[in-house]
C-alpha cells in the first residue's frame, strides 16, 4: 500500500501542478484575486503530495521492499540504514524525485514567505514554477518512475553502487539540488516579470533572498562534491574538470554574476534587462546540468545514470524551457524601461566588470564541456577536454577578476574614485608583495607562478578586510567606537567580506596543493617504511574485516615525524560481493590545514601492496574557502534589508499605515 499510495500522491501532485500552472496566471491576467491566491494553496498541496511520495519511497527503501523495481535495483537488505536512506537519491529515479521534491519545496516556501510580493507577481511566478514542475512530473512518471513494481519480487536486491555508499553522498546531492533548483525561483520571477512587462528595483530585492539561498546551497554542494571525490575516488584529486563537475560550476558562475548584478539593479535600478537574462541563463544552466548528468550523454566517474532513452525527454524539456524563456525575453525585454546611468569607474562599473568576467568564464566552461559532445555527435570522434584547456582559459579570466575584486566594495556608487580606492588598498598591496617576496625567497627554484598567485590571494583577503576596516573606521577612530561602528554595519557588508575572504582562502589552498603537493607511489610489505615530506609511514600490518555488506582489507600505518609517532592511519579497500565491485577508502590525517593522504592499490602475489601516499599542504583551505563564502551568504541573507515588506501576518496592519 505504501508503494501505491506514494505513486498516486505523485500523480496527484502532477494534477495540482497543472492547475497551478494555468489558473493563477489566468487570474493574474484578469486581475482576479481569488484565482491568483489559488497559486498559494496549490503550491502547498503539491508540496504535501510530493512530500508524501518521497517519504513513501524512503520507507520502501528502509523496509527493503523488493517488489518495487527501484528498491530491488539499488538496495540490499544488509545495507546499513543510513545507506538505505541515501540510496533513495543515489539512483536516477530517486534523484529525480528528490529534484521535484525540492522544486515543490521552493514553491511552497514562496507560497508561505511570499507575503511581501504583489499578488500578481506571486501568482505568475508560482505559475511558472508549476510549468517546470509539470514537465518534471511527466518526465518521472513516464520515463523514470520509481514506483514501478515487480510481479515476482526477488529475495535480495542488487545493492547500491559501492562508490556511492558513503556519508558524502548523504549530503552532496541534496545540497547540489537545493542549489540547482533554488535558481528556478529567480527564473520564475524573471519570467513572471517578462509576462507582466514590468520590472524595477523592488523586483531585485524580492528575488535576492532566493538567489542567495540557492547560491549558498550550490556553493556548499560543489565543495562537498569536490571533497567527496577527493577522499572516495582515491586519487587525491579534488577537481577533475569532469563534465558533471562543470555542469554544477556553470550555474554557480552564472548565479554569482546574477547575485552581483541584482545588487546594481536593487540599488540603482540599472542593468535590469541583463539581470533578467542572467536569471534565465542561470536556471537554464541548472537544467543543462541536470540533462548532462541524467540523460547519460556523458560517461564519467559519476557513472550512476546511463539511459539514453530518457535523454530525449530531458532534451525536450530543455528546449522548451530554455528556448521558450529566451524567446519570451527577446520579445519582451525591449519593453522594459532602462534605469539609472553611471560612470565606468564606480561600484556599478566594478560589478559590470565582475559580470563580464564571470559570464565569460562560464562560457569557457560551457564550451569546454559541450564541444567534445558536439564533436562526437557530428563526427563520431571522441575527444576529451581536460585540465590544460581549462587552466589556459579559466585562469586568465580569474586573475583580473581577483585583482579587481577588492576594488569593487571600496568604490562609491555612480561615480567612484579609483585613486582613492587604490590608496585604501595600499596595505593589502604591500602585504601581497611581502607574501610574494617571502615565498619567492623560501621556495627558490620552485614554480615561479605560485608565489604570485598566493600574493594575489593575500591581496584579496586583505582587501576584503580593508573594506570592513574602512567602513568601521578602524585605525582612524578610537577602538571602542570603531567596534561599535563595526557592529552597526549592515550584515550584508559582513557577508560580502566573508564571501570575498573565502575566495582568497580557497585560492591559497588551490595554489599550495597543486604546487607543493608531494606524492609517493610504492609497493610496501608489512614492516616497510615510506617517507613523504618529512613524515615516515610504517606499514605495520594488513588485516581483514567483514563489514555489513562488504569485506574490507585494512592496512595499518604508524605515522611519525622526526622519529616521534604522531598517529595511526588505516586506509582500506572494500569489496562488495553483490555487485562484484570494490572501493578505496583513503585514510586522511589533518595536520593543521594540511593533510596526509594514503590510499591502497592492488595487492601483489607476494603479499606486498601498492600504496599511494600524498602530502597535501594547505589542502583543507580549498573547502574552507567555500564554507566562508556560504557563511557570508548566510549573513547576507539575515540582513534586515531582505526582510523588509515581509511583515509577519500579525504586524501586517502596521505595514499598511502610511509611513509619512
Amino acid at each position, binding site marked *: *500500500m*505504501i508503494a*501505491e*499510495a506514494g*505513486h*498516486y500522491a505523485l*500523480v496527484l501532485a502532477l*494534477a*495540482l501542478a*497543472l*492547475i497551478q500552472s494555468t*489558473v493563477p496566471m489566468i*487570474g493574474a491576467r484578469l*486581475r*482576479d*484575486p*481569488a*484565482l491568483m491566491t*489559488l497559486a*498559494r*494553496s*496549490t503550491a*502547498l*498541496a503539491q508540496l*504535501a*503530495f510530493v512530500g*508524501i511520495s518521497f517519504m513513501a519511497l524512503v520507507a520502501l527503501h528502509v*523496509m*527493503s*521492499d*523488493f*517488489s518495487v523495481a527501484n528498491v530491488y535495483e539499488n538496495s540490499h*537488505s544488509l545495507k546499513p540504514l543510513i545507506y538505505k536512506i541515501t540510496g533513495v537519491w543515489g539512483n536516477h529515479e530517486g534523484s529525480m524525485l528528490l529534484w521535484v521534491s525540492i522544486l515543490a519545496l521552493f514553491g511552497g516556501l514562496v507560497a508561505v514567505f511570499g507575503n*511581501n510580493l*504583489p*499578488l500578481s507577481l506571486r501568482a505568475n511566478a508560482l505559475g511558472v514554477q508549476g510549468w517546470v514542475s509539470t514537465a518534471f512530473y511527466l518526465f518521472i*512518471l513516464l520515463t523514470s518512475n520509481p*514506483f514501478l*513494481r515487480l*510481479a515476482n*519480487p526477488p*529475495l535480495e536486491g542488487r545493492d547500491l553502487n559501492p562508490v556511492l555508499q558513503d556519508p558524502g553522498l548523504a549530503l552532496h546531492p541534496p545540497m547540489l539540488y537545493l542549489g540547482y533548483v533554488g535558481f528556478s525561483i529567480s527564473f520564475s520571477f524573471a519570467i513572471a516579470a517578462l509576462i507582466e512587462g514590468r520590472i*524595477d*528595483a*523592488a523586483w531585485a530585492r*524580492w528575488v535576492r533572498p532566493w538567489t542567495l539561498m540557492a547560491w549558498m546551497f550550490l556553493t556548499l554542494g560543489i565543495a562537498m562534491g569536490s571533497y567527496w571525490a577527493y577522499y572516495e575516488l582515491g586519487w587525491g584529486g579534488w577537481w577533475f574538470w569532469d563534465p558533471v563537475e562543470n555542469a554544477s560550476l556553470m550555474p554557480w558562475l552564472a548565479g554569482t554574476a546574477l547575485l552581483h548584478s541584482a545588487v546594481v539593479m536593487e540599488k540603482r535600478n540599472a542593468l535590469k534587462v541583463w539581470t533578467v537574462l542572467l536569471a534565465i541563463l542561470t536556471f537554464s544552466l541548472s537544467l543543462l546540468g541536470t540533462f548532462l548528468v541524467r540523460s547519460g550523454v556523458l560517461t564519467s566517474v559519476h557513472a550512476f545514470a546511463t539511459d539514453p532513452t530518457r535523454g530525449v525527454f530531458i532534451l525536450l524539456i530543455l528546449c522548451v524551457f530554455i528556448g521558450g524563456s529566451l524567446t519570451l525575453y527577446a520579445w519582451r525585454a525591449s519593453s522594459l524601461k532602462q534605469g539609472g546611468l553611471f560612470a565606468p569607474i564606480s561600484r556599478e562599473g566594478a560589478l559590470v566588470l565582475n559580470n563580464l568576467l564571470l559570464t565569460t568564464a562560464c562560457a569557457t566552461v560551457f564550451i569546454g564541456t559541450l564541444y567534445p559532445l558536439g564533436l562526437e555527435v557530428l563526427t563520431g570522434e571522441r575527444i576529451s577536454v581536460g585540465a590544460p584547456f581549462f587552466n589556459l582559459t579559466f585562469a586568465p579570466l580569474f586573475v583580473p577578476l581577483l585583482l579587481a575584486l577588492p576594488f569593487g566594495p571600496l568604490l*562609491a556608487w555612480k561615480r567612484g574614485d579609483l585613486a582613492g580606492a587604490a590608496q585604501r588598498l595600499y596595505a593589502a598591496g604591500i602585504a601581497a608583495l611581502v607574501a610574494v617576496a617571502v615565498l619567492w625567497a623560501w621556495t627558490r627554484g620552485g614554480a615561479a607562478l605560485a608565489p604570485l598567485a598566493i600574493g594575489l590571494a593575500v591581496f584579496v583577503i586583505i582587501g576584503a578586510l580593508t573594506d570592513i576596516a574602512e567602513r568601521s573606521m578602524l585605525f582612524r577612530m578610537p577602538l571602542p567606537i570603531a567596534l561599535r561602528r563595526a557592529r*552597526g*554595519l549592515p550584515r550584508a557588508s559582513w557577508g560580502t567580506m566573508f564571501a570575498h575572504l573565502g575566495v582568497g582562502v580557497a585560492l591559497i589552498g588551490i595554489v599550495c596543493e597543486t604546487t607543493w603537493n608531494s606524492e609517493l607511489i610504492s609497493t610496501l610489505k608489512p614492516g616497510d617504511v615510506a617517507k613523504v615530506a618529512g613524515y615516515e609511514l610504517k606499514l605495520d600490518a594488513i588485516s*581483514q574485516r*567483514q563489514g555489513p555488506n562488504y*569485506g574490507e582489507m585494512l592496512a595499518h600505518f604508524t605515522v611519525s615525524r622526526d622519529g616521534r609517532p604522531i598517529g595511526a592511519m588505516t586506509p582500506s579497500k572494500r*569489496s562488495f*560481493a553483490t555487485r562484484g565491485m570494490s572501493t578505496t577508502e583513503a585514510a586522511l590525517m589533518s595536520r593543521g590545514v594540511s593533510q596526509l593522504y594514503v590510499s591502497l592499490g592492488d595487492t601483489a602475489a607476494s603479499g606486498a601492496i601498492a600504496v599511494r601516499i600524498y602530502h597535501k599542504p594547505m589542502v583543507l583551505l580549498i573547502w574552507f574557502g567555500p564554507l566562508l563564502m556560504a557563511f557570508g551568504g548566510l549573513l547576507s541573507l539575515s540582513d534586515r534589508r531582505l526582510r*523588509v*515588506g*515581509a*511583515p509577519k*501576518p500579525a504586524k*501586517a496592519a502596521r505595514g499598511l499605515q502610511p509611513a509619512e
Partner: protein
Amino acid sequence: MSLWFVLALMTFGAIFAVLWPLGRRAARQPEGRESAVYRDQLAEVDRDIAAGLIGETEAAAARVEIGRRLIAAADAEEAAAPPSSLRLRRAVAVVALVGVPVLAGGLYLRLGTPAMPDFPLASRMRAPAGGQSLDQLVAQVQAHLEKNPTDGRGWGVLAPVLGRVGRFEDAAQAFRNAIRYDGDSATRRAGLGEALAGAANGVVTAEAKAEFERAVALDASDVRARYFLGLAAEQDGRPKEAAAIWRAMLDKAPPDAPWRPLVAAALARIGAVAQAAPDGASAKLPALPEGAAAAAQGMSEGDRAAMIRGMVDRLATRLKQNGDDVEGWLRLARAYMVLNEPERAHAARDDARRALAADEVGLRKLNEGLKALGIDG
C-alpha cells in the same frame, strides 16, 4: 485501511486545496507592495547617514532617486483590484472537481499496480526462507575468497555448495580454483564435471566427460565419476556400455551404499530399453524418474537436476522421432510441469496432439491425462 480509501482521501485533499481559496469570498489578501520596498530603502539611507557610511550629498541624491521610484510605484498601486468573478471561480471549481480525479485516476490506473500489496523484508523474513541464509553464507565465503583468492581449501568448501544451489558456472570456477591452489583429487574432478554437466542442463558434455575420465584415472573407485560416465554413454546412445559401467558399480558396492538405489534405478531403466528395443528406434519409452527420483533423495541437488534433465531430454528426443505413445507424452508434460517449465509443457501438449491426431483412442486418453495435470486447454 484499504488502499482505495487512502487514495480517495488523498484525492479529496487535493480537491480541497483547490476549492478552499475559491470559497473564501474575496477576503483581502495580505499583499506586498513595491512602495514598501522603496520606503525601506529611504529608511536605509537614513540609517547609513546615522552610521556615517555615506555623506549628506550622496544621501540627498539617493533620496531623490528613490523618491521618484516611490511615487511611480504608489501611482501604479492606486488602481484597486477588481472583485473576483463568480463565474470564473465556479469554472475553476468544476475543473478541480472533475479534472483532478479523472486525470489522477486515469494516469494512475495506467501506470500503477493497485492490486499488488507491499512486500517488505520483515514479512519475507517470517516466511520460511532457508535459502536466504545459505545465500548469505555463500556471499560471506565468496567475499573472503575475493580477498584471499589463493585459499584453495576455501574454494573446495564453497564449490559443492554453489553446485547445490544451482550456480553451476560459479561452482565450476570454484572447483577449478580449488584444484589449482589446493591440489587435484578425484572428488574435485568429479565435482567439476558435475558442475559442467549441470551448467549444460544435465548433458554430459565432452568437457565434462573429460573431467570424469580424469577423476576415474585418479581414483578408479570414484562413484560419482563412474555414474556420470555411464550417463554419458547413455546420452551418447550406447546403453549397453552404460549398463556395463553401472552393473560393475553395483557389483562392487557395499550393500548399504547410499547411492545404490539410484544406480539400480538407472540400470533398470537402461535394461528395459536395451531388452525391449535392441535397435533402439521403436523402443518402448524409458520410465521417467519416479523410481529414480525417490532413489535420488540422497543425491545432491546438482546430481538430481542433471539426472532428471538427461532423462527428460532423452524422452523428448524419442517422442519427436516416434510420437504414438500416449503415456510417454503425458510423462514428458508432467516432467516439464515438475521442472517448473509450463511453456515447454504446453508445447509438449501441442506436439502430442499433433502426433496423435490420427489415433482417436490415444487422443482421448491424452486429453484425460492432460486434464489431470491441469494443462488442458
